[in-house]
């Protein structure tokens, strides 16, 4: 009945008509996409821009002159010269019928439903003027399902399958599916009794009705009462665009409170830390202002991390210039040095890849990062690359990541510590006619990377048209980072590959661009959200300052874009700018007055823009890869679980922090599931529960650091594989 219009190749533009209006489609665009671009309304219920058309609602039907049956505009691509009609009595009746069917036995509970006021079913029922119901079906018992952070209410579900396709095509968890059963169809967790996923909450976000909701949010506020505060998520370097939705705390308490986080789900996908980890505002106002000013003025070094806005980083620079204090941020310094070395051979001061490049690629190589938890946005881009373009994704890491099992086509397991050799081999592989002088036999042996595996990458690379190399934190904090970066620079220079170096912390790139950094702290030191002699922090410490959801400012995200964030919840105390004013003897009213100094535009007028990259003449200098180190004994990888990044996410979301190891690891270490263990890494003592993770392989255990308070930041600036002696606590 519904016919697909075949796309006939006739150049890149297709001219046709919608409702008599001349329109042009790009190659590959659907009728619906063209109509939306032209501002012509076609109702839809199951359409999602970021996934392939689902085609379950049939509301998007349009008539095409010369065709008997109407077609689905969300799936059909136009051909030259067709005349499309988006509205007619016939179509209206058809659509109204569909809406009537959607309403059969739909509970009349808009009064309490969380979706009310923003519900597609409600809106379209009104739009089509449905005032009565002429169909019936026997009602059945459809109890609500408890899925951890999520609640699924089957009776409200209209089976549009947006959640399924988002989870599968945009997120990559593939955790839910449609259970067929005619009138009793429903959404069920895939292959298990209850939902076990990364809890990104994206399914909640795309659900057009109140069938999937966040349990924490349930029944606490109505859609129309919440004020949306545009912001950038502050948990990782993707800096995803989100809205904090705020309202007064209660009838008694006027203070604004964040009730939930929403995103533009048509285009973007945010992770669970962004969606659920919003309650990290600082409510303390500890410390004496003049004491803090004195400490800052007399500090010999200022220790800070990259969970900071550009403006704050600028303020710290100004203070350091005035007082001569050294700015200490090891993680950003590593990143700065990495970029510097990268630029030598790349001929550009910055890497050139973006998330979009990853999503559009048909070959991606990921190296030196547990990307699914280090930067979920990159993982979502990988998912899209695989789903849309069938991209060939190679994942090079010492630890297998089961979250990527549906996405990657090749897992290359290299030896811990041999990253320099792996990168050399990889670069040699993907550069056609590379002139690198490598001892391939030795490197291959030491790194454990097989030549056939590399050959496969090379083979695909010959065919692939869009290729991206994703580089992560393990390489940036590596002892041989400089040479690694130089090798990588060669890749960008070829212009055949894009390179995306994922900044390890939220604003590492911004800090690296703004600050002059050094390595070791000397006393007296002041820490800004870091351990030091005097701690200025949004997480306890000696003097309280606002957290990132209580501040205005900008970040530089991994796409090299300057993005803005706004105040969602109030802070009663003083901030860094006020402290700095006293030290600098200046009178800058707001932190965001520094935006103009940084980017030449006032904060309020700032549009999202890209950092400029400086072009230099590229060199081709790499040092010889010397003897690769070997790591024996018990190895631990510093890696946070999904939903967690830092002490801030820990404050907002409670989750356990076990030491995760494979069965093999348990046997080797004579440990069993649930054992209490103790170990020391980089001077930090850990005491954790050991847990066997059946998805893990090999003999490297995963140790989270997000729950280590401010020490988490110093831990994360080190090479992430560490030796440790694990002892059972009796």
């Amino acid at each position, binding site marked *: 009945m519904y016919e697909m219009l075949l796309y006939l190749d006739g150049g890149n533009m297709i001219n046709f008509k919608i409702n008599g209006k001349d329109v042009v489609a790009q190659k590959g665009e659907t009728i619906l996409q063209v109509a939306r671009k032209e501002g012509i309304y076609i109702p839809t219920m199951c359409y999602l821009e970021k996934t392939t058309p689902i085609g379950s609602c049939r509301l998007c039907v349009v008539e095409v002159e010369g065709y008997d049956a109407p077609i689905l505009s969300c799936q059909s691509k136009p051909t030259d010269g067709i005349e499309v009609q988006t509205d007619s009595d016939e179509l209206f009746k058809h659509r109204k019928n569909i809406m009537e069917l959607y309403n059969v036995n739909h509970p009349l509970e808009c009064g309490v439903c969380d979706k009310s006021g923003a519900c597609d079913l409600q809106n379209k029922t009104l739009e089509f003027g449905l005032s009565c119901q002429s169909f*019936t079906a026997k009602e059945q018992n459809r109890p*609500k399902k408890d899925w951890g952070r999520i609640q699924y209410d089957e009776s409200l579900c209209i089976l549009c399958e947006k959640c399924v396709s988002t989870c599968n095509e945009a997120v990559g968890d593939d955790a839910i599916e449609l259970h067929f059963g005619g009138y009793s169809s429903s959404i069920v967790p895939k292959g298990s009794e209850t939902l076990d996923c990364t809890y990104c909450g994206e399914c909640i976000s795309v659900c057009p009705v109140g069938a999937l909701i966040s349990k924490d949010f349930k029944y606490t506020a109505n859609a129309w009462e919440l004020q949306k505060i545009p912001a950038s998520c502050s948990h990782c370097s993707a800096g995803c665009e989100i809205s904090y939705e705020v309202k007064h705390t*209660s*009838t008694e308490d006027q203070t604004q409170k964040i009730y939930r986080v929403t995103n533009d789900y048509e285009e973007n996908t945010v992770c669970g830390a962004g969606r659920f980890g919003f309650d990290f505002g600082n409510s303390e106002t500890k410390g004496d202002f003049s004491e803090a000013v004195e400490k800052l003025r007399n500090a010999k070094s200022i220790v800070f991390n990259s969970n900071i806005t550009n403006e704050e980083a600028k303020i710290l620079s100004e203070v350091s210039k005035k007082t001569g204090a050294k700015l200490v941020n090891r993680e950003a310094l590593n990143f700065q040095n990495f970029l510097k070395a990268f630029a030598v051979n790349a001929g550009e001061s910055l890497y050139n890849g973006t998330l979009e490049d990853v999503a559009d690629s048909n070959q991606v190589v990921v190296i030196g990062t547990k990307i699914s938890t280090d930067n979920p946005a990159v993982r979502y881009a990988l998912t899209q690359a695989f789903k849309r373009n069938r991209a060939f994704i190679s994942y090079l890491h010492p630890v297998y990541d089961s979250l990527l099992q549906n996405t990657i086509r090749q897992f290359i397991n290299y030896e811990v510590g041999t990253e320099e050799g792996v990168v050399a081999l990889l670069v040699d592989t993907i550069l056609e006619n590379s002139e690198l002088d490598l001892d391939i036999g030795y490197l291959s042996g030491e790194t454990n990377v097989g030549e056939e595996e590399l050959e496969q990458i090379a083979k695909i690379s010959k065919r692939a048209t869009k290729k991206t190399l994703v580089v992560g934190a393990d390489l940036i904090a590596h002892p041989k980072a400089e040479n690694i970066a130089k090798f990588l620079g060669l890749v960008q220079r070829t212009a055949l590959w894009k390179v995306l170096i994922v900044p390890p912390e939220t604003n590492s790139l911004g800090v690296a661009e703004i600050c002059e950094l050094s390595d070791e702290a000397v006393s007296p030191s002041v820490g800004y959200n870091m351990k030091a002699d005097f701690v200025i922090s949004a997480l306890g410490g000696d003097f309280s300052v606002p957290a990132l959801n209580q501040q205005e400012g900008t970040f530089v995200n991994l796409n090299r874009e300057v993005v803005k964030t706004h105040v969602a919840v109030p802070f009663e105390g003083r901030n860094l700018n006020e402290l700095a004013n006293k030290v600098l003897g200046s009178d800058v009213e707001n932190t965001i007055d520094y935006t103009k100094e940084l980017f030449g535009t006032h904060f309020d007028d700032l549009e999202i823009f890209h950092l400029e990259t400086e072009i230099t003449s590229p060199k081709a200098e790499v040092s010889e890869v010397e003897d690769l180190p070997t790591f024996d004994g018990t190895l631990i990888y510093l890696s946070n679980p999904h939903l967690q990044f830092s002490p801030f996410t820990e404050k907002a979301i409670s989750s356990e922090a076990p030491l995760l190891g494979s069965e093999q690891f348990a046997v080797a270490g004579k440990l069993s599931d649930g054992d209490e263990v103790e170990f020391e890494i980089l001077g930090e003592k850990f005491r954790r529960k050991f847990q066997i993770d059946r998805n893990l392989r090999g003999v490297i255990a995963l140790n989270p650091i997000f729950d280590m308070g401010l020490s988490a930041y110093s831990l994360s600036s080190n090479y992430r594989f560490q030796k440790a002696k694990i002892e059972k606590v009796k």
Partner: protein
Amino acid sequence: MKELEIRGSQNYVPVEIEDYPTSGWDKFTQVVKRTLKGELFVGLWVVFREMVKFDIHTLQYPEEVLPVSPRYRAVHKLLLLLESGSERCIGCGLCEKICIADCIRMDTKVDENSRKEVTEYSINLGRCIFCGYCAEVCPELAIVHGPRYENVSEQRAHFALKDDMLTPIDMLKAQKEYPGFGALSPNADELVKKTPLAY
């Protein structure tokens, strides 16, 4: 003279008033008469007489209050379901949204039975303009305007809280179905379109 229609239970007595003079001469004679007649003393006498008689016709407020029409919009009440005694308010927030003076606020949460529970409901009576929109919009006939029109407070902003407005459970029997503003019209049944049921 026009007949006054007397409603309510009060015992009103119409006062007789002479017709007004129209011609110039009549007006003149009226002035002269009034000047010489000493009518002032008549008035004073009447006041004195009524004072000692104690036969008073004004309303004895606050012991006595005028009965108000059911459509009068005074201080709100929150009603209970007559059958079960549960609260009618489901916490839909429509009253809060429609309130033109923005003076309603409520707190809701999930209760143990996974239902929406209204934990607090307040109206700032100092801001309320008693427009009746809240009662009109309420889908549950939960919020209504009661007949109590007296407000005493030390400051302009004063609040009626949920406990003040909610029918106490032991008074459930005495709770009257509300015929006033926002209530169902007498022909509501005829207006409803029926949906077929499968069983």
